[in-house]
């Protein structure tokens, strides 16, 4: 499609602004830009048509099954969108709550933040939570910064090593590095779990803690996770739960009960808030009692009369993670979702998510290799290694799925599975959809045996075919 800039016509307008009701004021010429910014000049209709057509070039949850592993592409309830758009929420300036007596004018918003923090902490088994982190990776960083502050307060500054399993998402080591730690990778054993003997070898008085995705990125629940946490604690370290896969255990296992000191939650995964084509998400962090003094500020409090206010009086707090209280409109959606689900609903979410993933895994087992032969949680990781021997790799299978009306699974992750296809169906998809998807996967597996060349041409039905990523990186063209 043509760029919006190519549709621009000099003098065309999309919006009329009111005339100035005060005298025009001039700024000194030397402070003004030489030429106007060359932004598009289009009508409102031109703009709407352009962006509407662009939006139709995307697959989304509302139009396609989107089994992108580790991303929990569940349905985004429409009521959440409507509630987040209430003017009583959208028009509030965040500074209002920090003005003298200003909190009186935003009691509803403060109450929502407070109640949401408590509800999350309860659902995950922790003492409290913060809603400030603006994304999952930002939540990881917040938690690891709290670990750093805690260790410093105990005089344990030599603890500079963060242990991270080899199956971890890339943000774990990256977040640990930003928070000032060095990373040590721990291998997985032949069942796909963290190797406890390797862990024991790595534990010493330089270890700050461990970052453990639970269930792990292979989609497996490690039944010795509580033992792992206890071992790290005995060695003087802290344990962090990457909650990216919370959808698998919500309503059944609370990471706080396993002994974890902190965890983050991706509201855009487990709590149904939209992914927005890559954000905004939100990454609240829950903490155990010993980390409470280190939570970010400002923090919402509720007094004996039931009035809410902000405080900034925690001397050990790590400070400000977000300019104010996090991605508030996203929190509104997550809170509405949690209220609708309730405790019993949480249980049904994980049950159905786990059942669907195992169903897909079992249906595709005759056709696709599995590095580990065991029941999975909310997602299953298959391997295209059998097809790869025929010249068809995970990428080809992904593209062939697009032609069949399905978004592709996550591919080539986790790194420890060759030709990985990571499929996460979520609880909101029906058996019919799963069956149709499995049939497409089976048809592709057959085609790989019969006519592999056919798959190399995919996708053919999308607005563009396979794109030249090498040239894009070597001769970057990043704007017009």
């Amino acid at each position, binding site marked *: 499609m043509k760029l*919006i800039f190519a549709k621009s016509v000099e003098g065309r307008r999309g919006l009329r*602004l009111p005339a*100035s009701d*005060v005298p025009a*004021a001039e*700024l000194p010429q030397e*402070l*003004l830009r030489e030429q*106007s*910014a060359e*932004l598009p000049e289009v009508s409102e209709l031109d*703009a*709407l048509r352009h962006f509407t057509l662009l939006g139709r*070039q995307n697959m989304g949850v*509302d139009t396609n099954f989107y089994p*992108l592993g580790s991303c929990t592409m569940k349905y985004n*309830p429409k009521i959440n*969108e409507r509630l987040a758009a*209430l003017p*009583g*929420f959208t028009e509030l300036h*965040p500074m209002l709550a920090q003005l*003298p*007596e*200003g909190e009186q004018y935003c*009691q509803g918003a403060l109450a929502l933040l407070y109640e949401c923090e408590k*509800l999350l902490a309860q659902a995950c088994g922790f003492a409290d939570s913060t809603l400030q982190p603006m994304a999952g*990776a930002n939540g990881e960083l917040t938690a690891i*910064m709290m670990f*750093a*502050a805690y260790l410093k307060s105990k005089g344990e500054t030599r603890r500079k090593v963060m242990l991270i399993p080899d199956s971890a998402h*890339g943000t774990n080591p990256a977040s640990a590095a930003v928070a000032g730690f060095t990373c040590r990778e721990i291998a997985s054993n032949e069942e796909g779990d963290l190797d406890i003997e390797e862990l024991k070898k790595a534990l010493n008085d330089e270890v700050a803690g461990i970052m453990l995705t639970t269930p792990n990125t292979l989609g497996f629940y490690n039944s010795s996770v509580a033992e792992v946490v206890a071992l790290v604690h005995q060695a003087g370290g802290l344990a962090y739960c990457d909650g990216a896969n919370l959808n698998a255990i919500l309503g059944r*296992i*609370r990471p706080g009960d396993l002994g974890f000191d902190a965890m983050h939650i991706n509201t855009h995964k487990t709590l149904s808030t939209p992914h*927005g*084509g*890559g*954000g905004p998400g939100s990454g609240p962090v829950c903490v155990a009692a010993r980390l409470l003094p280190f939570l970010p500020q400002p923090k919402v409090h509720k007094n004996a009369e039931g009035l809410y206010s902000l405080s900034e009086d925690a001397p050990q707090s790590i*400070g400000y993670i977000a*300019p*104010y209280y996090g991605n508030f*409109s996203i929190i509104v959606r997550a809170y509405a979702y949690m*209220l609708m689900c309730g405790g*019993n609903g949480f249980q*049904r*979410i994980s049950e159905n998510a*786990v059942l669907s993933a195992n*169903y897909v895994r079992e249906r595709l087992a005759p056709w696709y290799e599995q590095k580990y032969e065991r*029941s999975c*949680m909310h997602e299953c990781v298959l391997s295209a290694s059998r097809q790869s021997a025929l010249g068809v790799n995970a990428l080809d299978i992904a*593209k062939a799925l697009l032609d069949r009306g399905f978004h592709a699974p996550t591919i080539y992750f986790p790194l420890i599975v060759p030709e990985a296809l990571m499929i996460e169906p979520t*609880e909101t*998809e*029906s*058996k019919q959809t799963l069956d149709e998807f499995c049939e497409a996967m089976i048809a592709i597996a057959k085609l790989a045996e019969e006519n592999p060349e056919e798959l190399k041409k995919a*996708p053919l039905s999308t607005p563009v*075919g396979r794109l*030249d990523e090498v040239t894009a990186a070597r001769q*970057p063209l*990043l704007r017009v």
Partner: protein
Amino acid sequence: MPFIANTDAERREMLAFLGLDSMGQLWQKAQVPEPEFDFSQMPEGISELEVSQKLQGLASKNDNGLICFLGMGHYDHFIPAAVGEVLGQSGFYTSYTPYQPEASQGTLQAIFEWQSAICRLSGMEVANASLYDGGSAIFEALTMSLRTLRRRREVVVSEALSPIYRKMLDTYCASLDLKINYVPALDEKSDIEGILAAVNEQTACVIVQYPNVFGTIEDWSAALTEIKAQGALTVCSAYPSALALLKTPGEMGFDIVVGEGQPLGLSLAFGGPYLGYMCTGNKLMRKMPGRIAGQTKDTQGRTGYVLTLQAREQHIRREQAMSNICSNKNLCALAALVYMTVLGKQGLREVAQLCHNKAAYARQRLSAIPGVETLGDSPFFNEFVLQLPRPAESLLAELLKKGIAAGVPLGKYYPGRERQLLVAFTEKRSKEEIDLLAENLEALL
């Protein structure tokens, strides 16, 4: 109501396919222990109607009828209806990161257009797909400078940078082996001499705000030449709406431009989601954090878009990555793109001019009140500092009772400025509202 599709019969069928009779057996096979916590202790789920009523109730306990003169980085600008209309399209909001570019051209082309538009506005050469917010973007610019100038471990920051962003910097930098030199402001201005004196061969970057936190417009062109002579990089946190009118950071010669994109079509929403933007020059392109979209061709020679230069990112480089950032603020960047498109070349300029007109009128009107003064006579954009005859905090509380959120008292952030109030004006504020502020303020003094 957890939005589950399958019926009990379908679940039984699926379990039977797995050779199981109950979900309990599946949990056992997946090695998941029995629950320790009884989730039925938590509140029961409620219906869509009930949740609507409950949240409408909470929303109604917020007073969004106050006349807003609050700014300090986040402003009450008008948002054209077209913005919400585009954001509400499911192709945009129910999709995810464009990992499969063929099925995500809408998002990728929009990012490419956003990168183009924000470069044109800031006068810079390249931009990324967006960052979390204006504050974290400053931190990313700081670490980008440290990566570029590896042996330098000092940073110079003007205290005329938003105090909120300075607090965020302190948090994010806590574990870095780094010295931050904060240079105090002089009245409503940055202390340019002080900043130049603080720069040395250890300085990785100098960070300033434009217009500064007090609303003052400062031309950094001459100072940048001196800073660059010391080999340091220069970072500007800029208010994007102002750039439609003012000399751009690019024209002044900044190396990295970041800022808060909220004024470009995003609601205030009690703190977010907001939008960090980042632009730089071609030579620092590969040092930039975050996602970047690039134009390329498909196998048939058709133009298309992909995420590119990914070797910088955490999913490839892990702990060696440029940043831990994974997502961007994609939908927020789309909002800003639609805003810039609908307002267009002329509209954005008119908004900036209206903001300045209102502020200029207000400055004249408010400083005519006996006992009320403005600090200095520097040029300002849409925000300035009022010096009041009484502590600003108590006056502000009284004005709130009159339905006016009159501004941000500066004493909390700048000791010694207890009688100062930072007031902001957008195109939404009418002459009538400004007069009302003046009358009420005068009556209280």
